[in-house]
């Protein structure tokens, strides 16, 4: 009953190769306008800085030497990283409870609360910084209220210092911490907590031994996101930091736009990015033992 298998003489249609057209525009966009410019910027950072032209002849490492050798630049870098760490930590402490609540609440206000969390994100950087300006400035809302209630005589400096910048940055980036966390917490099987309780664990232990470790992917994602974004924040430090507070991004823009020293600006920007990448890498490595349990 077995017939001889007949080999095909007409070729089969090949869907895989036709599908490649789908990715072509995105690939082209990213290669031409992201990859190439980034390579280009690395090249430019290796050009000598001159006045009167965008850059000079030949290649040199002088810009990097300048950046790493200058106390002022290194100081600003350290300040920026420190600011990033502070902001990230505060966002985590404030954001985790909110995320936990939002992920697991069944209240009918859930949608509204989501709007509350999302709104800073969507409303606009300048608008938000502006709002903080009004709140924190010398004759801003907070100071006025405190004075009206007789709690202070002179206005407190809530602005034009790192405090004001930190507060505003936390406000800007808090949603970026909350949203990934919500996703991760929602994906944790609630039966695990119930199982732990049935085995005798109390509320605090359940949180410490079940919820917290299992939220690690979300915590990691949120922290990385907030840290990286804080490092490169520009508008907020400028608007709320005044002339005293300088972050690396401010220096970069200064070098580029105000002083027209492109190679130096490029070097500064790349050092900033490199520092951020290094910090993230160390963070991920440190968290590896926890991640190994999942995925």
């Amino acid at each position: 009953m077995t017939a001889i298998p007949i080999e095909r003489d007409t070729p089969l249609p090949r869907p895989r190769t036709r599908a490649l057209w789908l990715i072509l525009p995105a690939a082209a966009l990213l290669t031409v306008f992201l990859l190439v410019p980034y390579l280009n910027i690395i090249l430019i950072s290796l050009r000598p800085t001159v006045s009167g032209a965008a850059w000079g002849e030949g290649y040199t490492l002088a810009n990097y030497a300048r950046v790493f050798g200058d106390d002022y630049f290194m100081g600003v870098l350290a300040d920026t990283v420190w600011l990033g760490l502070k902001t990230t930590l505060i966002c985590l402490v404030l954001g985790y409870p909110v995320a936990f609540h939002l992920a697991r609440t069944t209240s009918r206000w859930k949608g509204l609360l989501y709007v509350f969390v999302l709104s800073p994100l969507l409303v606009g950087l300048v608008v938000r910084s502006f709002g903080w300006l009004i709140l924190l400035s010398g004759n801003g809302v907070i100071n006025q209220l405190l004075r009206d209630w007789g709690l202070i005589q002179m206005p407190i400096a809530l602005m034009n210092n790192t405090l004001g910048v930190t507060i505003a940055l936390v406000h800007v980036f808090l949603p970026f911490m909350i949203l990934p966390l919500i996703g991760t917490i929602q994906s944790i099987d609630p039966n695990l907590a119930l199982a732990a309780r049935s085995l005798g664990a109390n509320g605090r232990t359940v949180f410490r031994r079940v919820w917290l470790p299992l939220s690690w992917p979300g915590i990691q994602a949120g922290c990385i996101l907030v840290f990286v974004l804080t490092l490169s924040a520009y508008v907020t430090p400028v608007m709320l930091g005044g002339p005293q507070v300088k972050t690396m991004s401010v220096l970069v823009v200064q070098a580029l736009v105000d002083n027209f020293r492109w190679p130096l600006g490029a070097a500064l920007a790349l050092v900033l990015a490199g520092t951020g990448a290094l910090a993230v890498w160390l963070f991920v490595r440190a968290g590896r033992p926890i991640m190994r349990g999942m995925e």
Partner: protein
Amino acid sequence: MTLARWGASLFLWAVYAFLLAPIVLVVVLSLNAGELLAFPPQGLSLRWYGALFENEGFMRAMRTSLLVASFATTASLLIGTAAALFVVRHAGRQRERLRMLLMTPLMLPEILTAIALLFFLYATGIGTRTVTGLLIGHTLITLPYVFMNVAASLYNFDRSIEQAARSLGAGPLTVFRRITLPLIKPGLITGALFAFIISFDLFNLSLLLKGVGMTTLPLQLFDYLRWDFDPTAAAVSSVSVLMTLIVVLIIDRVVGLRSIRFG
């Protein structure tokens, strides 16, 4: 309720208040009848919105922002949907790697991307005389948002529905038009709205890539605030807030806010 519970609730409400305070404040101030940005406002009035519409600088900036945002959204929709289709359905083992790649504009510091693009534009002679650089930059930044949301709705897509359509005689293009597209509409809409809002609000990128004589709304507002401190700025901000609110409401109606993806 126990004390701990009360404390926790208080904490949560404090954080929510923290998130909303500046925004609410700005809106309230824009309705101030008086001259200064004082709180509490001295009476309610819409005069500053009137002033806004007469301010030539702001109006022009608004038009530019709308133009750029519309272009970026459309471009991102087309490019991002195609990319999402490829990554979810045809990428095989490269899927995660491609996903990461498409998310890089989000991961890289915006200021760095802006600088890189700026240099590139000058190197290739495109320069910043035209709005081209701005359009490219905005498209680049909004692409990941569209991609993420469309990919999310494709991940959960039941392929057998498409197969059913083919078994009934529909060719691949018809299947896409009449079956796939309507069913991923939520992802498309969410992605598009996100792209629009993000582009409208972009600052760092616009700062570096704008040419002489052109400006976007955030930039204009920023400049304005350095010199003038009247409620016109608050009015501009409130318009932004209103736009956002409308967008969020639409998203909620169409898909529910829970389905918004953030990587």
